[in-house]
């Protein structure tokens, strides 16, 4: 990608300036603190300001209660939490769900992904293209017309069409959000023929819109883009490509040099997701034989096998107490400790590490680990960056829609959707999958039929982690270092970097602030 790095035109500041940035347009409450010197970020701290504590809510409850409670961790990724909870219980119950149950589980999770990916890109990331910082750019007026909050035409169209995707979860899972239809051994109800037809209709409508507005081409044409040269050729091929939201994203990203910011550690993590059922026409990415999206860990583009035993969480800089160094989640402790450690502890997020290393997770990580040629070459040539992260998010639905169509066609209404598990009385297991924003794991230990230990590590715990016991920054803290800040009063560049990870902190408070004459604020 050729770039003119207009982002990198900072004013000169000789003194170090500290900016505290409460970042909006993210889920939950996130505060970023950066030190800026000579117009560039020299250090960064990420603070999640809300305590979750679901782990402690779960202790002592019935073995299956995670199916109902953990989807409440997040109102957006609730199907992913249900999947993780169910997979942990599958393992504890020593059962493999029937193929059709796996298909239905996958379909609901994929519906969340393809809805959330587009909304994040259009409503949250590209909203910054309409930031006044870019008013001198030739594409600015068009960016405002497309992405201005609440009224941009792409914003309105994205809402109108993505709202239907979650109906697939509601049809197959009984409700959305917070469905609990997955159970150890399968799913709680069998879809009928009409359910499946309705899902096909909804998916077909989404695909038509996604191809027309987001891609500006067919899925097959997009899948032919396998290299950076292909990407340039695709963009130059026709106005339909250039004027699609994808085409506009690439053109605007080139103008502002989006590929020059947000590098980070260049470590990638995927737990793998979307188990392949027996006898399916769907093939795993990168020829993975177990899942559609493979598991793995990569330093740069060097992929190694994933082993959950290498996961540990640190709390040296988190508002927790109870141990030093890292602890595997089976042995994890969630004991809040908001006082003390002044100046050292600064967030409610723990610091997960893989084999002692910080790692970013999400669509880019999954595509690098699956050895997708375009994104592998992008990382090989420039390292990870904000452009690559957001590009892959915008096009991930293109990789998921066809497998969804196939699985919808493979499900048989008179099939088997449940296999009785063994009674879950003792033992420990983990449920690993991916939420839309990346690797998600539930680690569970059951004693006497009750939950004795439950630890959840979310994608944003990885991406937005604080420093660990060795004072190594978390992924987006590291990615922020070196980011130019042209205007400290409007640090839009910082937003690009952090939003490229699609931050999703704990769902807690939403708000309406009333106009001047009102004091009403809906929490």
């Amino acid at each position, binding site marked *: 990608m050729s770039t003119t790095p207009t982002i990198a035109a900072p004013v000169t500041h000789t003194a170090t300036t500290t900016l505290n940035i409460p970042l909006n347009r993210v889920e939950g409450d996130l505060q970023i603190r950066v030190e800026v010197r000579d117009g560039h970020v020299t250090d960064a701290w990420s603070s999640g300001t809300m305590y979750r504590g679901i782990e402690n809510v779960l202790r002592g409850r019935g073995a299956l209660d995670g199916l109902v409670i953990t989807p409440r961790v997040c109102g957006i990724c609730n199907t992913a939490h249900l999947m993780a909870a169910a997979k942990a219980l599958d393992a504890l119950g020593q059962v493999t769900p029937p193929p059709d149950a796996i298909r239905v589980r996958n379909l609901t999770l994929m519906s969340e992904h393809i809805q959330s990916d587009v909304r994040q890109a259009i409503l949250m990331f590209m*909203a910054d293209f309409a930031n006044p910082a870019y008013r001198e750019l030739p594409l600015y007026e068009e960016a405002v017309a497309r992405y201005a909050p609440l009224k941009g035409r792409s914003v309105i169209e994205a809402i109108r069409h993505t709202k239907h995707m979650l109906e697939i979860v509601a049809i197959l899972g009984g409700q959305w959000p917070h469905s609990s239809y997955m159970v150890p051994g399968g799913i709680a109800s069998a879809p009928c023929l009409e359910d499946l037809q309705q899902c096909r209709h909804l998916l077909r409508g989404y695909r038509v819109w996604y191809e027309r507005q987001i891609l500006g081409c067919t899925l097959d044409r997009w899948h032919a883009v396998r290299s950076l040269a292909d990407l340039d050729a695709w963009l130059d091929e026709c106005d339909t490509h250039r004027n699609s939201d994808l085409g506009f994203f690439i053109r605007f990203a080139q103008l502002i040099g989006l590929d020059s910011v947000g590098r980070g550690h260049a470590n990638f993590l995927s737990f793998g997701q979307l188990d392949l059922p027996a006898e399916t026409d769907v093939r795993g990415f990168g020829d993975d034989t177990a899942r559609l999206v493979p598991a793995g860990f990569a330093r740069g583009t060097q992929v190694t096998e994933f082993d959950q035993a290498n996961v540990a969480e640190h709390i040296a800089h988190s508002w927790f107490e109870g141990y030093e160094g890292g602890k595997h989640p089976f042995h994890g402790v969630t004991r809040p400790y908001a006082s003390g450690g002044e100046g050292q502890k600064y967030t409610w997020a723990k610091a997960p590490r893989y084999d002692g290393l910080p790692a970013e997770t999400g669509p880019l990580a999954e595509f690098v680990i699956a050895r997708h040629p375009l994104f592998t070459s992008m990382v090989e040539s420039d390292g990870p960056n904000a452009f690559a992260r957001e590009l892959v998010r915008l096009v991930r639905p293109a990789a998921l829609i066809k497998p969804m169509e196939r699985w919808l066609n493979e499900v048989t209404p008179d099939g088997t959707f449940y296999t009785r598990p063994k009674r879950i009385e003792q033992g420990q297991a983990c449920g690993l999958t991916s939420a839309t924003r990346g690797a998600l794991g539930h680690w569970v230990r059951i004693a006497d039929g009750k939950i004795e230990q439950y630890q959840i590590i979310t994608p944003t715990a990885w991406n937005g982690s604080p420093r660990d016991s060795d004072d190594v920054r978390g992924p987006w803290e590291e990615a922020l270092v070196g980011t130019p800040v042209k205007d400290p009063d409007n640090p839009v560049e910082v937003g690009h970097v952090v939003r490229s990870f699609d931050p999703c902190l704990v769902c807690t408070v939403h708000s309406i602030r009333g106009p001047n004459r009102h004091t009403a604020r809906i929490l």
Partner: protein
Amino acid sequence: MDRVIRIICVGNRYSGDDNAGPLVHDQLAGMPLPAGVELVDGGLAGLNLLRFVDGAERVVFIDSVTYIQPGVVVLAGQDIAALKPSDYDHAGGLSYLLGVLPEVCDGQVPEVLIVGVAGDVDQEKLAAAAHTSIALAVEGAAGVRDCVPCDSPGGQV
């Protein structure tokens, strides 16, 4: 066929300052509702509640609010239109939904009313909010009478 009327309770039952909507939902779930009125546990679905707004004749949201004094307040008409929509987050949020509703609603935009519970939640407030929401669901803005605008002392229910 008459269009449906919905009472949608929003909030987070695990968060003490945002749990009024779910708690009112629990009360309403045990009460007989007028014909044609549906009850929805909206949780934190935010913008994704749009599918419960599409096609409705009237929607009454119940949510926690901050207000100059504790009580139950009703927002309607210009009070809602004057609310400043928040930025979009993953959940969208109720304010974002209300901000884009005229543009993204399928079919006719329904009448929207909000019952807000301000201050610490107690049984008296929950009961008042539940009964107010039913009255508003049946009568619409005409049932507001003593309640708007919300910065008026008459806004207390």
